[in-house]
């Protein structure tokens, strides 16, 4: 399974994603510079965290116009896996690939911590190795993770199982319905504020992020096997 991790000016979790994939899966992964339009060589695309273009104007707003986003849209349409983490989630929202928008955290401060989450949908290519309603702990680190969508959208997300992760305990940013991660209707594009790539080995304080990557690989292998 070939992974691409996108690099925008200001991405800073790109290397962490690469290290995580290497460590957990050992599958090939390339850094792809934001000016490259074509992503046809890849089976999965990771849009990493960081501060693309300084998060100026709105988080993710400037990055979504990068040439590489054409490739991302194409990959999403073709049913390939697209994973947006933190800033990557915001970029995918700005690009219209995921619903909702982010506001500043309700307490107006950046928040870094290890946060308990509930797995709300474990039937996705990204979550099949988790248990339904399992509690997992993943690091969070963001200033604008306050997910917003209007009521109609929220109803739809609930109905269609697009809410994938919820914050457990104290909501760290004020997001609607404690939403920490959502997917598109097809289920092949996932965005989440927490950082699975920061929870891989014991000394990181949690190893719960690894299953997201093993889920993706298992999904892909089954798909290839079936074909």
């Amino acid at each position, binding site marked *: 399974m070939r992974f691409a991790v996108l690099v925008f000016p200001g991405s800073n979790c790109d290397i962490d994603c690469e290290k995580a994939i290497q460590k957990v899966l050992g599958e090939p992964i390339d850094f792809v510079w934001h000016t490259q339009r074509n992503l046809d060589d890849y089976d999965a695309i990771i849009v990493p965290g960081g501060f693309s273009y300084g998060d100026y*104007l*709105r988080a993710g*707003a*400037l990055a979504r*116009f990068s040439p590489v986003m054409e490739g991302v849209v194409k990959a999403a349409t073709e049913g390939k896996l697209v994973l947006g983490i933190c800033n990557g989630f915001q970029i995918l*929202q*700005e690009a219209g690939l995921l619903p*909702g*928008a982010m*506001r*500043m*955290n*309700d*307490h*107006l401060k950046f928040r870094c911590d290890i946060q308990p989450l509930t797995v709300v949908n474990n039937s996705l290519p990204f979550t099949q190795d988790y248990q339904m309603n399992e509690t997992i702990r993943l690091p969070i680190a963001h200033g604008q993770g*306050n997910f*917003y*969508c*209007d009521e109609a959208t929220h109803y739809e997300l609930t109905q269609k199982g697009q809410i994938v992760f919820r914050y457990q305990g104290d909501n760290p940013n*004020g997001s609607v319905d404690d939403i920490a991660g959502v997917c598109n209707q097809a289920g092949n594009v996932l965005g989440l504020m927490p950082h699975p790539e920061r929870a891989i080995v014991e000394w990181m304080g949690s190893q719960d992020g690894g299953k997201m990557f093993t889920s993706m690989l298992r999904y892909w292998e089954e798909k290839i096997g079936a074909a």
Partner: protein
Amino acid sequence: MYKATITVRLKPSVLDPQGSAVKGSLHSLGFAAVTDVRIGKTMEVWISATESAEAEQKVDEMCQKLLANPVIETYDYELEGA
């Protein structure tokens, strides 16, 4: 040369965390008369264009494409010769 002053506001239905915080601070500073605060962005954009209609069309386009996020924001602008 034209100068557009663009105001981007959160939609009224969207809770504004910054506005609420500022309101709280104003209250604790003794400004009890403040009933609501909403915070948005002001952008001043200078554009070289020969006609105002041309400038206006450009400004509108950049607002729609980039400067405002339609999921949570609205925008309006004023244009003046500069």
